């Protein structure tokens, strides 16, 4: 799981921690759907 609170803090985003906690499950689900798609991308060839 990504630590969204840590990301918000590191990037100095003015999002209250409780609001980060609210969106974390949605972002986790989005990440879970997105990460497997990346295997289709080439990292040695330009598109």
């Amino acid at each position, binding site marked *: 799981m990504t630590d*969204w609170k840590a*990301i*918000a803090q590191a990037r100095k*985003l*003015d*999002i209250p921690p409780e*609001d*980060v906690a*609210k*969106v974390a499950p*949605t*972002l986790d689900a*989005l990440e879970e*759907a*997105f990460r497997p*798609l*990346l295997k*289709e*991308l080439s990292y040695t060839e330009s*598109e």
Partner: protein
Amino acid sequence: MTIEQAAAKLRAREISAVELAQESLRRIRQHQPLLNAFITVTEDLALDQARRADEELSRGIDRGPLHGIPYALKDLFKTRGIRTTAGSKIFADYVPDRDCEVYRKLTEAGAVLMGKTGLHELAFGITNDNPHFGAVRNPRDPARIPGGSSGGSGAAVAADLVFFAMGTDTGGSIRIPASYCGCVGLKPTFDLVSRAGVLPLSSSMDHVGPLTRTVRDAALVMKAIADVDSATGQSIVGRRIGVPRNFFTERLSPAVESAFGQALKRAETLGASLVPIAVPDPAAINTVARIIQLSEASSFLQPHLHRRGDFGTDLLSLLDQGRLISATDYVDAQRLRRLYQKRWSELWERVDVIFTPTTPIQAPLIGQTLVADEDVRLASTRLVRPFNAIGLPALSIPFGTTGLPPGLQVIGPGRSEQTLFSIAEPLTQS
């Protein structure tokens, strides 16, 4: 009455543009308390434009089929000297100093602006339950949402308040209200209609298009704003209609499934051939599109993000999500998008158009958050969002005879709007 019928009456002097505008204003006044379709009604401007339209026609100056026709703009289109709120507190007092390109073209075509329609806050959502301007209601059943984000435009057309209304579509925001309100909605090919002067949500996925009562009316509006040939001319006979076996025919409500089956039968009866196909990557495209939209929307609204209390709760949550997505993920999403666009471009060797339902459900109730255990927002956008990411034209037409006729979505290759009109028009004629 359609645009073409009104245009004929204007030229036969059976009715004047001022009378058309007055009737439109009367209906707006009558229905606004319940439907809340408008944020601003431009009564004085409308009557001025209508008087000018009549005066020009009397002098033999004819600007074409939209001359003297009442219409509305979603309150996201900049209009000089007229407040443009984007349905938000952020832009509540914003009065642009220039007109958007679409308004300029419609004015040049002689159309008469009745006002600016309500939308989901900042065009980022599908319910039109707006915390700042109130909920827009569905004319077919006021307990239900009109869909969004161009919900005021959908409601205004479906309730016959105006002949057509302009909307924007970033993840289905023209086609969803068309489907839920039972009117016609076109999301054209990306960038075919100018976005200049329209407040952005997601610049690489925003599309501008019309909501109308009939397919023919949509063609007439597209002629005026994008010079798309409005003569449908082509035939549905012999056309190859792709019918997705995957994704687009899954998890449909019984009413939508039944209406979709009827639409396919009707197309076959009219002489089209149905071609079962497997469409590439729709779920993946939706994922990629969400990442792009969240990122681009939070970028556009960056200067206002310190005003957290001025955003509605659902909006704030979406913008927070966008800010937490990394730049690398955004770029990867754009790279994947190009890959999917290429795969979809290969489909058109096998079929001329693709049919899908526009939405898998009919209009939900105001305040409803789940339908068959699925988030209403995700269900409403599931079948329409892919075409924002890949930029193909998609037309929604009402199909079925119930009080809430489900939408049929007709998708074609880039710049095939005229083909979409030609295939869709006979389907809507009994």
